[in-house]
Each structure stands twice: as C-alpha cells, then as structure tokens.
C-alpha cells in the first residue's frame, strides 16, 4: 500500500515537472499568434518574427487597413515574438541555411550589419521605398543599406532626450528647464543628492546610449569615414571623463541591469532611486508599459550639452524590418511592409500605438495627432514630447552602423564601460585596450 502511494506521488510530481518544462519551453521559443485583420479565405499567410511585442500590435492595425484596401491581395500574419538574442540567432541560422526563415522579420540596428555581411540573404526594398523617399528621413533608411541597396525599413528616428522625474527634482528644489550644459546638470545633481540622497542619473555599463550622445555632441563617431573603429578618440575620452566626473560627485551611479532599458532598471526608476534617464524617445513606451507608478511625473527635455550651441541629440537604436530571400510571396511582403511602415497613415499609427517619433517628419507638426489628449503618451508625460522634439529637430546626429559596430558594441558593453564605471579603471587606458581588442577581433 505504502508503495502505491509513493508511486502515485512520483507520477504526480513527474507530471508537474514535465508540465513545467513544457511551459518554459514555450516561453523560450516565443509566442505565436495569428493576426487575421479581416482577411478572407484566400488570404496569403505571411510569417513575421519580432523581439518587441508592441510591434505586432502596430502591424495588426495596419493589416486591417491593408486587407480593406486590397481585397484581392489579402494577408494573414503569423506573428512570433521571441526574446532579443534568441530571435536574432534563430533568424541568422535560418537565413544562412535557407531553411525556416520567416517572410518578414525585425532586425535590430546593432545586429543588422551581421546580416549584411557577404551577400545579404535579404530582399532589396528600393522599389517599394522609392515612393516615400521624399517624405521620410533618408539617414534612417541608409542605416539598413549596403552598396546602394536598402534592405530594411525603419520604424522611428529615435531622437535621444532626457526624461526627468519632476517629483524628485522638486523635492530638491531643482528646475529641469534650467539645465542646459553638463555643468548645470552636475550642479543640479549635487543638490539632488545632498537634499534627497537619490542619484540624478545613471552611469550606463551595458549600453552605449550615453557614449553615442557624447560623441554626437562633438560631431564624432565610433568609426572613421572608412568604417574602421576609433574607440580611443579624444572625443570619447572627453565624453566619458565628463560622465566619470559626474559619478565621482554622486550625480550619476551605475544601475542594476546596467542601463535604463532593462527590467531591473524599470524597478529602480519606479522606486524613485534615479531622477533621470538619457534615452532615445522610444523609452516612452517603457514608461507607459513598465513604470506606471511614474505617470504624471516624468518630463521630457533636451539632453545637456558639453558647451552651449552643440547639437544635443542623436538617433538611438532602431529596427529595420526586412523581407527574406525565401519569402513565400516577395512582392506582396514588400508592398505590405512599405504600406505598414512608410505611408503617412502608418507613421501616424506608429506614434499612436508605439509612441515612437515617426520617420515621416511631417507628422511631427500635425498638432491634432501629436497633441491628441486621448493619446496614452500625451496623458502620461508632464509635457508634450513633440514640443521638445521640434526644438531639437535639426540637431539629431547620426552614429554610423558599420560592419565593425557589433564588435565595438560588444567590447564596450561587456568590458570597457564596466571597467570604467564599476572598477574605476583609467579612461584612456580602458579605451586603448578596447581599441586593441576590437582590432584583434576584426582581423
């Protein structure tokens, strides 16, 4: 009898363990959902891989519009959402072997050059981009191009801005609107730390947003004209020295997760431990999704500059959506993609659904769209994002994405920035080491 009980217990626990494994397996390989968008029986089913769940929502809206406008070319979309690394790795293997790739996929800017090496296994999109060329920011399309061929369609400009927690600043008697230069930021930060014990901002160790901002303000880049890495440049040394000085004065501090766009960091911001995040504008959607407690407390402003008159912003991050060579119906996929991301309608929806700054800059001046009081982003933030965006419109610099970029990113984010901000290693020495390491890896 006793034995029977024991066997029963074992069976139950095995079932539970197996059920557990099943669930975790599903999560690891992502979630798939079918978007009908009002499509009929004859619709072509296209598959779409992404690493951002929200992007699926945007495509769903545009799908309904497409199916209405094109009754004889209707589409159903199988959307698979996977974690960032997983999705890119799977996609890379799939396009490399020519088996199992989706028809449409999102590729993040940092990974894009890997997909352009050799002969890209992606379809050139020039013909479907052409009708929109005059209306969108050309440099964002150039990011996903090689030898005159455009392989990816951008989602946003990604203008970098400062997000200030006004509650903390008010408690310390600081007005964020007075902050123009890093020197102003330092003074304000010292005041915040003394009065509230909180840090003014973050010292990022696992992302290069801040390094890019510092370079862009000085008109510099991680790579030279030919695309070769120049990591130990005087500009980057200067930029990181400014940030290190802020850290030494308790103005900024490293954050769990290593940068503002991580789960741990959302928690820290929610808890009110840091007053500022310097991030591309798409960070807005992270606020509305993951930091609901801060609603009505976050103000958007231009990033401080080293000296007055320097450009304050840089386009950060980005996703190029591509059509793979193995797509079922290449032309249909391309046409739909251009419609879903480049048309005026699409650009308006990109703002409405995703809260991104659309690549069609005409939208930036459509007051009824940008200042719609019902919009969740308009409701969440203290001031209107487009009021800030329009003031820095002509200052948005570009940091190039070259074949060396993934390696540069990897070395800076795993080694160099940690050495500088966690271990206090000498900046010039750390950057010289990084340059040597990157050159060695690129050999």
């Amino acid at each position, binding site marked *: 009898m006793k034995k029977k009980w024991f066997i029963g217990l074992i069976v139950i626990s095995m079932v539970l*363990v197996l059920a*557990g*494994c099943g669930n*975790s397996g599903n999560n*690891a390989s992502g979630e798939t959902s079918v978007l009908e968008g009002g499509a009929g029986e004859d619709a072509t089913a296209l598959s779409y891989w992404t690493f951002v769940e929200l992007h699926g929502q945007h495509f769903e809206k545009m799908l309904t519009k497409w199916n209405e406008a094109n009754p004889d070319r209707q589409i159903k979309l199988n959307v698979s959402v996977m974690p960032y*690394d997983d999705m*890119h*790795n799977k996609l*890379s*293997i799939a*396009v*490399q072997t020519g088996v199992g790739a989706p028809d449409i996929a999102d590729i993040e800017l940092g990974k894009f050059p*890997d*997909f352009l*090496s*050799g*002969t*890209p*296994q992606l379809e050139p999109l020039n013909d479907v981009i052409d009708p929109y060329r005059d209306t969108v920011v050309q440099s964002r399309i150039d990011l996903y191009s090689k030898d005159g061929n455009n392989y990816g369609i951008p989602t946003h400009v990604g203008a970098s801005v400062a997000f200030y927690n006004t509650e903390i600043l008010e408690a310390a008697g600081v007005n964020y609107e007075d902050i123009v230069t890093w020197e102003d930021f330092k003074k304000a930060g010292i005041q915040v730390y003394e009065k509230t014990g909180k840090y003014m901002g973050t010292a990022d*160790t*696992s992302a290069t947003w801040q390094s890019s901002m510092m370079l862009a303000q000085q008109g510099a880049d991680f790579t030279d004209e030919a695309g070769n890495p120049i990591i130990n440049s005087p500009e980057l040394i200067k930029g990181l020295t400014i940030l290190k000085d802020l850290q030494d004065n308790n103005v900024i501090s490293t954050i*769990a997760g*290593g940068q503002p766009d991580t789960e*741990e960091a959302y*928690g*820290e911001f929610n808890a009110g431990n840091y007053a500022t995040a310097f991030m591309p504008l798409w960070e807005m959607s992270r606020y509305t999704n993951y930091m609901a407690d801060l609603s009505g407390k976050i103000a958007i402003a231009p990033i401080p500059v080293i000296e007055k008159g320097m450009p304050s912003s840089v386009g950060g991050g980005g996703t190029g959506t591509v059509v793979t060579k193995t797509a079922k119906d290449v032309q249909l996929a391309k046409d739909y993609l251009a419609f879903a991301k480049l048309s005026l309608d699409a650009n308006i929806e990109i703002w409405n659904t995703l809260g991104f700054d659309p690549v069609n800059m005409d939208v930036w001046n459509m007051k009824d769209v940008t200042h719609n009081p019902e919009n969740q982003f308009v409701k969440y933030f203290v001031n209107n994002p487009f009021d800030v965006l329009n003031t820095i419109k002509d200052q948005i610099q570009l940091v190039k994405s070259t074949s060396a970029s*993934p*390696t540069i990113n*990897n070395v800076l*984010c*795993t*080694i160099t920035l*940690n*050495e500088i901000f*966690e271990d206090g290693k000498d900046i010039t020495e750390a950057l010289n080491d990084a340059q040597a*390491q990157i050159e*060695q*890896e690129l*050999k």
Partner: protein
Amino acid sequence: MIKKFLYSQKVAPYVFVLPFIIIFVVFWVYPLANSFEMSFQKVTLGQEADWVGVDNYTKLMGDSIFLKSVYNSAIYMILTLIVLIPFPMLFAVLINNKFMWGRGFFKSTFFFPALTSVVVAGTIFRLMFGEMEGSMINNILGFFGVEPMKFLKGQVTGYIALLSLATWRWTGVNMLYFLSGLKNIPDEYYEAASIDGASAFQKFTRITMPLLKPTTIYVLTISIYAGLSMFIESMMLWNGNNSPKNIGLTIVGYLYRQGIEKNNLGYAAAVGIVLLVITMVINLTQLSFSGMFKKED
C-alpha cells in the same frame, strides 16, 4: 541462406552493435570531420567557404577573450571537481548507512534539482543573486549588517553564484553514482574490519574509498567534460552570453558567440576543435594516471 547469415555467430555481434556504430558515425564522426574542415575555412553568410589555412588557429592563440574563456572554464571545472566529488561521496556514504533515518527522503531531495530545467534554475539564481537590496542573498546579508553586493559583476562573487548553482544541481546526481558504487561493496569486508577493530574512518579510507575507485574515476571523467563544456548555466545566470568583463564566458559560450551571434562559423569551429583537444588531453592523462588503460589481471 538469409537464416544462416542471421544465425551466424560471427555476424550477430556486428548486427547488435550496428545501431550504435551508425549513430556514432552520423552524429559524431561526420560532424566532427565537418567542423575540422570548417576550422580551416572562412564561412560567410550565403557565400562559398574560403580556405584560409591555419589563420583561425593563429588568431585564436592571440585572442585574449578566448584565453579568458579557457581560463574561466578551467577554473569552473576545477572548482566543481573540488566540490562535486568529495561532498556527494560523503553524502552517499551517510545515506547508505543502515542507521541513517529518512534515507529515501534525502535521496529524492538531493536528486530533485537535477530534474529542474537549467533555464528555470538559472533564472531563479539570477534573481537570488541580483544586485538590488531586495534580492534574496542581499536581503540575508543585510540581516547580518553586510552592504548589498553586486554578485554578478565581480569575478569571485560571480563564481560563487555559478558554483552554488552547479552544486545545487549536480550534488544529487553524483551522489547517486556513488550510492550505486557503494552497493557493490560486500558487507563482509566491513564486518571483517569491525572484528579486527577498525574505526569508522579507517573503514572509509581502507575499504570504501579504494573500492569506489572505478566510480570515482567515472564521475571525475564526466565532471571534467561537463565542467569544460558548461554553457547554459552561465548563459541563464547572466541573462545572455555577455557577462560584465566576460567573467562568465565559457569556451562553449565563446563558440556560440562567434558561430551563432557573429556568424563566424569557421572561427567557431576552430574553438570547438581546441575544446575537444583540451578535454581529450586532460581526460586521457587522468585516465592513464589512474590506471584505467592497464590490462586487468
């Protein structure tokens, strides 16, 4: 004729080992030969592979991140050997003792972590060793007045987390190996030793340990291999293959980074071959030192 062939004593053994031979050739020899070939090539997306001679290997020798990954894997292997052989052996002896109560309970408790997916366990350990004040370990440390630590950002503290995960997960498995080894030691030996007045310690060192030697060598061999090829534990603990300053990067992690993340398959193949050579050299040396290749008397 067919019947004669099938019933032949000469042929039968080959028929029986055939499935193994086929699996061995298809899933081991062929991929190995293929990787060996690839390690002398530059393989780029959508293009024919180019022969580059020993370039991949010469580059590997000057690659400080690869050397770091070899160092990390070696340290991890040594630490797991230090923890995961003596302790499971001790626990096995204790549990095997007739006077031990709750033997079944301890056996299953120790073994249970091995059934848990590494993905789940790694994620839980990452949260436990998080750098925020509220993380479990920092919470406990705070109770003793210790400041919160950034466990996963330091080499030593990172390894404490990694080793805790390995210990939690593998102690039970190794313990079972030792338990099955202990079952093969006849009770008469211990009885005879008791009559001769041997102490418990003497019985352990003079009877148990020598007779457990084949089991110990087996556990040692698989632990060396498992230590050097560790990957998922580190990947889950650091939420990806990129740990700060590469403190958690292992040889297989580097292979994955080069081959899958950077599409540098030729270079990754070279990493794989070097890993194979290192593992073979260590294990063959160890096995020949422990006398496993000597003919049995």
